[in-house]
């Protein structure tokens, strides 16, 4: 059990041979200890990088990078079309982009949320975090912020491409900047909401596969059910009910909020959106409540796993 002394032992003339490996022994650490805030920041950075496979194996970079590319591709095409056809405006609003590509965002969340939280749960690394200066709230906040930031990057990069393309095509600067800003607010809200939901679902199970399936199920089933029932409600001539139904799936909540407050065109059937200004406020409140609820649930989830 004294490995570092074995090297000198093999050298014949000890002490005279310049190639001898010296046993420098244990050195204590006298340097800075940056404490809790630094640890939280480090965890955030590590989780954010991890969401794109950085600092992980080459294999785990494939899917997130591929999804990022898939997110950006349509934006590139739209820009190309705009430039070549010399159109007066982009074929798509900034705010609609994430709604159209919600499946890609969902896939990204489903693949990365479990890797962010289930891994620590499954391999029981969580106690190692909590035996260090950080507290439960730091862990949860860092993981949530990292996931939200990862989604924000995923949704913002294509908007940036659209914006840059629009300026390149010399579209109206004020219009485009306003639309871009509205898009940014919308995807920021979407990122926080989706990150919260994704992490809560993923943290329920230490099994990564279940986590992936559960996140996909929650997002697609809720959206599928809501849009189906909405369509039926319109057919039955009940647009008011249809408008309220959007509250039952995350992406339609975002859609409702941005239709009311960010000048977006709703993706609800017949572009209806929330039925009234009051309904719009309810949509916004629902989005914020869901995000806050996710945070509270995550805090609760980690109450029992400390050691």
């Amino acid at each position, binding site marked *: *059990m004294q*490995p570092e002394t074995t090297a000198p032992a093999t050298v014949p003339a000890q002490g005279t041979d310049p190639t001898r490996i010296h046993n420098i022994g244990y050195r204590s650490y006298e340097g800075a200890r940056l*404490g809790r805030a630094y*640890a939280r920041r480090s965890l955030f950075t*590590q989780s954010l990088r991890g969401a794109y496979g950085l600092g*992980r194996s080459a294999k785990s970079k494939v899917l997130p990078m591929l999804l990022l590319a898939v997110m950006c591709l349509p934006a590139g095409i739209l820009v190309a079309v705009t430039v070549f056809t010399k159109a007066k405006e982009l074929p798509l609003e900034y705010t609609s982009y994430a709604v159209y590509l919600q499946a890609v965002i969902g896939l990204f969340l489903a693949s990365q949320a479990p890797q962010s939280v289930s891994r620590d749960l499954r391999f029981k*690394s969580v106690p190692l975090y909590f035996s*260090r200066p950080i507290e439960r709230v730091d862990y949860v906040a860092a993981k949530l912020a990292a996931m939200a930031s990862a989604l924000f990057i995923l949704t913002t990069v294509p908007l940036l491409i659209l914006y840059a393309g629009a300026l390149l095509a010399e579209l109206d600067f004020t219009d485009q900047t306003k639309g871009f800003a509205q898009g940014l607010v919308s995807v920021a809200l979407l990122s926080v909401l989706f990150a919260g939901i994704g992490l809560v679902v993923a943290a329920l199970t230490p099994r990564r596969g279940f986590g992936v399936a559960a996140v996909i199920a929650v997002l697609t089933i809720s959206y599928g059910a809501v849009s189906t029932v909405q369509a039926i409600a319109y057919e039955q001539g009940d647009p008011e009910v249809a408008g309220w139904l959007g509250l039952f799936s995350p992406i339609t909540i975002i859609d409702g909020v941005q239709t009311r407050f960010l000048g977006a065109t709703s993706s609800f059937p017949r572009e209806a959106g929330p039925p009234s200004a009051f309904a719009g406020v309810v949509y916004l409140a629902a989005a914020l409540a869901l995000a806050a609820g996710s945070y509270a649930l995550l805090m609760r989830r980690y109450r029992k796993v*400390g*050691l």
Partner: protein
Amino acid sequence: MPNATTVGCVTVIATESLSKRFPRVTALDRLSVDITPGVTGLVGANGAGKSTLIKILLGLSPATEGRASVLGLDVATQGSAIRERVGYMPEHDCLPPDVSATEFVVHMARMSGLPPTAARERTADTLRHVGLYEERYRPIGGYSTGMKQRVKLAQALVHDPQLVLLDEPTNGLDPVGRDEMLGLIRRVHTDFGISVLVTSHLLGELERTCDHVVVIDGGALLRSSSTSDFTQTTATVAVEVTDTDRHPDGTAALREALAAAGIAVHAGGRAPGAGHVLLLDVADDSTYDTVRDTVAGLGLGLVRMEQRRHQIAEVFRKEDDRDDTQARSAGGHDAA
């Protein structure tokens, strides 16, 4: 800031009628114990309250009543500061298989507040000290149990704490790995100057490593004494011999012969077949020679001669029983 390594501070851990009650269980029951710098063993059966105590000491779980301080810091109010200066190695598996030991330990060093460069340097140093070399760049999934235990120890030491809490570090190791781990734990104190609190349910194992042993049972302090007190009673050898025609009761004959040779002999206790076993107090290595020569002189067959390891259960035996043995062995020691 109080510093345990300075001469002024003589306790690393101090608890004062520390209790932890859950709705249906009392995990800790008015535990008062002072632990000094060095290697301290914390012994107790499963459910004796070892893990609960560690949780409280790390400031992660509030005590129902009583006080505790670690390195002079109060666990109730300065948990974060304590965790910056203390390392913890959990009992269970806690390593993700898909990253290398280096990456993992660097990450854990940063979680302890070490700046990036320092985290890298300390990781390389610490992994070398626990005996991991080239394999530290390979994913942890391919490691043996012994190597994983070393990584777990490394992550507890990487931020150069003043105290490490090791929860059952020898769990799942084979005898050789166990010895290596115990040697390593000893070195953590002697070479690195870090105080150690190590839990185990094997008293014999801790005796060889620790300066001091604390035994808890049912959340209460059963015994706290320096290891030499325990080794007095543990330096015991069990001898079993055959009977021969000349000595129809070989055991009795040997007992007489050994008593004549000045070795304290007592019966084998209440275990099955104990009637044929003699327990001898070992004063020094010459005792073994005396036993060998005496058995050979009597012409008996030596069936077994083994060192007795005290297990936790033996400390739990009736108080008078142990006092008896202790008094005798202490007397023998003085004579020697």
